[in-house]
């Protein structure tokens, strides 16, 4: 293990940038504040590259800042570490983050709160980097909470509109539920380890002693930890905040809700893989939940009309894929899909943002159409990224998603049912992505006149990041090619972290190619159906859907009414309960007790003070009484 003092700079420089923007942003002016923010992330990116290149083979770099908590024998240090897993995350966060920062210079260029925006964005980068470089579970949790905070701040960025703040609240509160379970998991882990005499939350120490905990306890611990991940990474049942989070600025959606924060759950399970390996029941649960979420979200995405909502549900669905991989113990593959997904999803979101920006805020796809001519560059980046998402041959998504499907079939922990679910979802994915594509870019332009007059392609500060991301969507997949094509660089890189489990897969090459074709086939079917229905307006099902699809269509359009169900079952009663406590219980009982106590004291003192009559003879009588008592005591006591 090498130590290096440069590691601390990676999270701390964006923090510094954020602080400068908070305190001196107004003096710097909007453009300079933005440039400062971009520069700090760029710096972190460069250092991350350096760490990546200098990482010893299969080893780790560690950087200890100082001891935070010390209560012998428990000790928590503020320390950063970088192993192969961390470097992957670092590159994603700083690389994609940098591109999004640059893009934001253009997107938020005319916004009043640009300085505040960049301050929050840098703060987010800091917390996310803290999360992935933390060398112990407690520090990871600090980063975990911090990104939740920044997510809240950025979702409700345009706070003057009340719906945005409500969405921010929803995100934070739903996350909190997950965080609560996460905390319980940490406590239980800490306690269990402690009962064997090991008081620590350090990852390395935990890893070497993980086997001490009984399987039952381990299952409980990992389930709780995974519950935390469902909150952060938007799986069933805590995904409901992510579609609402689209109220925030689009670059925020790209960075936080596609590429980085939502992947924190995956990262956490990967970092604690040694715990999950010891709890097979949890892994099965994860796989099932991931598969269900992937399918479920994809069905909802089929009918959505808001350009960002489709992408939000798509993110939930793709996260489900990542958890599918985790569920069979294939952590490297999960991270690989995380990696590729970051590129094409960010590209998709930023392209959508480009369109929204050009249309001055229009997000309803039914009002778009035929935008290909207005947005030439965005058109192509969008197309490339969409193809990558659905797994078109040799794009990044192809390699990662395909591998997951293959794992479902061939890994001893996988199951054909899960494969089927994932396979159908792939088809649905293709359908809804290209439904969106055709609705937005082809067909008749349905824009209003005055909007159409001002439609323009985005400036280069926005399109260049788009192009870079699109390029990445195509190229980065080659890092994880299946064995029969080229050796799998990705698995080799992460091998020291996760162990050899994923390297050994049974099944022949031809079988693998067969199933690859199956996957491509259903994706192609989805694409074709989308083309068939949406390329021309007359064939669009929505025209006749309310009657023919009817109830089914409405169910999907309204997201299975899950939000409403949560409201009636959980939010409503809790709010009513809280209101009851505030309006009834608190005044009547708490105040009653306190005031009642005071009233008792007061009334008793009102009684007792009547003894002070001011009449000396009364006092003398009392003297006499006292004297009698004392005499009686001496006589008889």
């Amino acid at each position, binding site marked *: 293990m090498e130590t290096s003092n440069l590691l601390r700079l990676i999270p701390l420089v964006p923090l510094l940038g954020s602080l400068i923007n908070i305190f001196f942003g107004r003096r710097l002016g909007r453009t300079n504040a933005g440039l400062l923010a971009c520069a700090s992330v760029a710096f972190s990116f460069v250092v991350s590259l350096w760490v990546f290149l200098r990482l010893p083979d299969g080893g780790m770099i560690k950087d200890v800042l100082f001891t935070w908590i010390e209560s012998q024998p428990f000790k928590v240090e503020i320390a950063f570490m970088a192993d192969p897993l961390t470097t992957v995350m670092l590159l994603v966060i700083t690389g994609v983050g940098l591109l999004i920062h640059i893009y934001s210079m253009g997107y938020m260029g005319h916004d009043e709160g640009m300085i505040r925006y960049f301050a929050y964005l840098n703060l987010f980068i800091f917390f996310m980097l803290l999360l992935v470089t933390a060398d112990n579970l407690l520090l990871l949790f600090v980063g975990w909470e911090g990104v939740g905070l920044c997510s809240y701040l950025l979702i409700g960025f345009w706070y003057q509109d009340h719906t945005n703040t409500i969405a921010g609240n929803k995100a934070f509160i739903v996350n909190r539920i997950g965080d609560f379970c996460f905390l319980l998991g940490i406590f239980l882990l800490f306690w269990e380890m402690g009962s064997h005499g090991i008081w620590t939350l350090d990852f390395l120490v935990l890893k070497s002693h993980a086997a001490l905990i009984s399987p039952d306890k381990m299952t409980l611990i990992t389930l709780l930890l995974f519950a935390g991940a469902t909150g952060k990474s938007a799986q069933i049942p805590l995904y409901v905040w992510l579609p609402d989070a689209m109220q925030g600025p689009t670059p925020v959606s790209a960075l936080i809700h596609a590429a980085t924060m939502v992947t924190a759950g995956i990262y956490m399970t990967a970092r604690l893989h040694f715990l999950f390996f010891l709890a097979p029941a949890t892994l099965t649960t994860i796989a099932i939940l991931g598969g269900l979420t992937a399918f479920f979200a994809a069905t909802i995405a089929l009918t959505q009309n808001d350009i960002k909502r489709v992408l939000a549900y798509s993110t939930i669905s793709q996260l489900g894929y990542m958890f599918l991989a985790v569920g069979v113990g294939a952590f490297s593959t999960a991270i690989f899909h995380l990696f590729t997904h970051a590129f094409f999803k960010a590209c998709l979101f930023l392209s959508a943002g480009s369109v929204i920006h050009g249309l001055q805020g229009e997000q309803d796809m039914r009002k778009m159409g035929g935008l290909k001519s207005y947005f030439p560059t965005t058109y192509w980046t969008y197309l490339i990224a969409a193809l990558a998402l659905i797994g078109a041959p040799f794009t990044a998504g192809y390699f990662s998603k395909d591998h997951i499907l293959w794992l479902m079939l061939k890994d001893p922990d996988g199951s054909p049912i899960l494969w089927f679910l994932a396979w159908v979802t792939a088809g649905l994915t293709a359908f809804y992505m290209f439904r969106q594509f055709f609705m937005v870019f082809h067909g008749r332009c349905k824009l209003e006149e005055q909007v159409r007059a001002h439609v323009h392609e985005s400036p280069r500060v926005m399109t260049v990041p788009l192009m870079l991301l699109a390029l990445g969507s195509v190229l980065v997949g080659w890092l994880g090619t299946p064995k029969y094509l080229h050796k799998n660089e990705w698995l080799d890189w992460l091998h020291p972290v996760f162990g050899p489990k994923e390297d050994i897969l049974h099944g022949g090459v031809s079988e693998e190619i067969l199933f690859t074709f199956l996957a491509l086939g259903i994706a192609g079917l989805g694409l074709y159906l989308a083309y068939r229905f949406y390329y021309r307006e007359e064939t669009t099902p929505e025209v006749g859907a309310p009657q023919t699809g009817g109830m089914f269509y409405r169910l999907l359009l309204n997201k299975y009414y899950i939000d409403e169900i949560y409201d009636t079952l959980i939010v409503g009663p809790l709010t009513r309960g809280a209101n009851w406590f505030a309006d009834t219980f608190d005044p009547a009982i708490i105040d009653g007790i306190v005031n009642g106590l005071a009233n008792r004291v007061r009334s008793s003192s009102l009684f007792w*003070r*009547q003894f002070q009559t001011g009449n000396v003879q009364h006092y003398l009588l009392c003297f*006499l009484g006292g004297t009698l008592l004392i005499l009686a005591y001496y006589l008889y006591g």
Partner: protein
Amino acid sequence: MGSTLPLNYVLMLSGIVFAIGVVGVIIRRNLIIIMMSIELMLNAVNIAFVAFARFHGSMDGQVIVFFVMTVAAAEAVVGLAIIITLFRQRQSLDPQDMQLLKW
């Protein structure tokens, strides 16, 4: 020459007179009479002291009585002066009219 008078008879007399004085202090509504009741109590105590002096054959008891009388004189005089002042203020000798320290 020994006396055949038992000590406790004298003490009981002293106690009775003392109790009578207490009654007077508590129940009368005239400040001067209250003061006189106090003098009565002092006298009862004097009786007891003298009885003890006789019982033990020691002059100490009588010396104490001497001092008690002195102090009683001083106290009676000052007390009466205060009563006069109070009367000037309140035009009354009733302790019930002097309840300013009431709640």
